[in-house]
């Protein structure tokens, strides 16, 4: 077993910063209305002297202008769940500890390469999503958690090395039960090494079995006892905008972020999305933008482009307060197989993606194919369908077909070929009885026209031999 710990010390703040990037001082505050205190502060705020735990009134006395936003404990949990689903891409066993995501990586390294490479992949992933993190690896989950709390990038790959690494850990950083870590320094025990050399019986009598279990979990003598994380089966992300947005252009940035999050989340479950909804929340209501794709997709750029295409077509009736992206239809993603000897240019956009791009701007029914039916009536001989039954019409047919026949005006046309009698459809009320001719008009156009059987007047134009 080898556990990687991704510690996310600023989860709440990063969640806020990624939707409203700011360089000015910003703090998150919590507590009763008359006793608000700071629970998180960004770099600019800390530089100005604001500290975590400070009263908001004290902070206002220190600094005239800063942004104070309410701290939302549920957002921490939501982001942790989201990141765990993203991390699920790198390990089949993902567990959660407060402010941390644990991954069992001993088997992942077979796929992603040795630990330094896997570590870089994890760092890139979390950095791209905009979350600050510390990563460490150790043979037990709790040891990795403790080591990540001390310094970033600690790598302990063998149980022997773990023993050495634990010796030096100061007791107040060792995440042991509070009663023990408060009392032990008073007894002169300041590091984990000292504690591990203590007789176990005495420790049990003084601090209970809880401390011994925590120590055993650190060293690996007892199993970690963590519940493994299961990624949820639907994606639901809500982003509150910092102000009321009245024009669509201002929604592009949050939508790009949200589709990128969706893509990262989809990569975690190795799946695609076929349909998702972008919900624009107004004051007292919401408008849904449904986005449908022809085939499951998981590429961030493509999802963003499709979403933007749909968004640009709509009119904002009211200012938007928040955006929500909901994806429930998550089929398995099957990557398109490409031939080694494919003749298309290397950077070609696959035809499926091209169709989506056109549909996003021109409408859902703007791209189609025509197929044939077995009906002999020209109006019903072709339908919108992607099929070709290979049936070949024995009589010459034009290349253009008019949607409905229209009178052919002007001087009488010259007959080039025909007639072809078409007498059918008596069974379904759409009876036709026509003589079709290939004719040439006075302007030299070759037309496909019909008239009543036996007559050669009252020409109706039905197509062009263009």
């Amino acid at each position, binding site marked *: 077993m080898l556990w990687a710990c991704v510690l996310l010390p600023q989860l709440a703040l990063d969640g806020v910063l990624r939707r409203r990037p700011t360089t000015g001082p910003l703090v998150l505050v919590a507590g009763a209305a008359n006793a608000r205190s700071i629970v998180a502060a960004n770099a600019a705020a800390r530089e100005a002297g604001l500290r975590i735990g400070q009263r908001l009134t004290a902070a206002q006395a220190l600094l005239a202008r800063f942004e104070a936003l309410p701290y939302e404990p549920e957002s921490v949990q939501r982001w942790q769940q989201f990141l765990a689903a993203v991390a699920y891409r790198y390990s089949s066993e993902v567990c959660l500890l407060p402010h941390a995501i644990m991954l069992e990586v001993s088997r992942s390294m077979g796929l992603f390469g040795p630990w330094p490479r896997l570590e870089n992949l994890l760092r890139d992933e979390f950095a791209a999503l905009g979350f600050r993190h510390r990563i460490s690896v150790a043979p037990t989950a709790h040891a990795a958690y403790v080591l990540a709390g001390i310094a970033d990038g600690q790598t302990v790959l063998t149980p022997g090395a773990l023993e050495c690494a634990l010796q030096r850990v100061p007791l107040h950083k060792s995440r042991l039960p509070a009663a023990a870590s408060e009392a032990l320094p008073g007894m002169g025990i300041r590091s984990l090494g000292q504690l591990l050399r203590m007789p176990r019986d005495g420790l049990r009598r003084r601090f209970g079995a809880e401390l011994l279990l925590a120590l055993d979990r650190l060293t690996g003598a007892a199993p970690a006892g963590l519940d493994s994380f299961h990624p949820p089966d639907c994606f639901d992300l809500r982003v509150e905008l910092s102000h009321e947005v009245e024009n669509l252009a201002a929604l592009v940035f949050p939508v790009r972020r949200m589709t990128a999050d969706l893509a990262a989340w989809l990569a975690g479950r190795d799946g695609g999305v076929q349909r998702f909804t972008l919900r624009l929340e107004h004051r007292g209501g919401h408008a849904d933008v449904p986005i449908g794709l022809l085939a499951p997709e998981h590429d961030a750029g493509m999802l963003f482009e499709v979403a933007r295409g749909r968004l640009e077509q709509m009119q904002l009736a009211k200012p938007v307060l928040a955006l929500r992206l909901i994806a429930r239809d998550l089929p398995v993603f099957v990557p398109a197989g490409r031939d080694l000897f494919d003749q298309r240019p290397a950077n070609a956009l696959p035809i499926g993606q091209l169709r989506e791009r056109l549909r996003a701007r021109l409408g859902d029914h*703007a791209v189609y194919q025509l197929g*044939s039916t077995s009906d002999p009536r020209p109006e019903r001989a072709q339908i919108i369908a992607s099929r*070709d039954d290979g049936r070949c019409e024995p009589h010459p047919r034009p290349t253009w077909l008019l949607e409905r026949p229209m009178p052919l005006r002007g001087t009488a046309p010259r007959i080039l070929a025909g007639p072809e009698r078409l007498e059918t459809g008596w069974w379904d009320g759409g009876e036709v009885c026509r003589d079709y001719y290939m004719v040439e008009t006075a302007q030299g156009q070759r037309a496909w026209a019909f008239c009543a059987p036996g007559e050669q007047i009252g020409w109706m134009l039905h197509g062009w031999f263009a």
Partner: protein
Amino acid sequence: MSAVVPLSSLLDARRVWRGRAEPTPTGEQPTGWAALDAVLPGGGWPAAALSEILLPLDGVGELQLVLPTLARLSRGERSLVLVTPPYAPCVAGWRQRGVDMRRVEIVTATEGDVLWAMEQCLRSGSCAAVLAWPRQADDRALRRLQVAADSGRALAFAFRDRRHLGNASPAALRLELEAMPHARVWVRKCRGGVVPAQPVSLPYVALH
């Protein structure tokens, strides 16, 4: 005596100007009309470029001109796209002329989006040929299409009214169709060659 230099090495070094570039013997994109291939530089459509076809009216043989090419391309890997055709293509008729309709995509776009859709299809690289009937296309728009066709390695066909003949065009090939007294094709511009003085007649091919 100076050393004997083989002529081919001089030619390969490109130090001898031969007056006129040799025409490529076989066309990369033959039109399927032998008489037309014979007069076009490159022996067919300019590959990966825009061809403009100017018409007096609909139904004078404009599709006949391109259908042999479309039939050939529909047997390949890539799609054929029609952007806002003026009428519906008749499936039976196209199939009689050898086109596999499963490769043909039809795109309906509003007047303002025709050129955008055409450019997207050309640029994508997954279309072998894109046919469009733009109503308003200026010099700049056509130039964009020309660049898009080049980057996506696709044939672009723009069918336009004959009145645009007087306006300059960046298309690599401009053909004018004439219906009376019989169907003929005038080559009005061809990149990399001399415009032939005589039109090419376009005989109607009886299917049966």
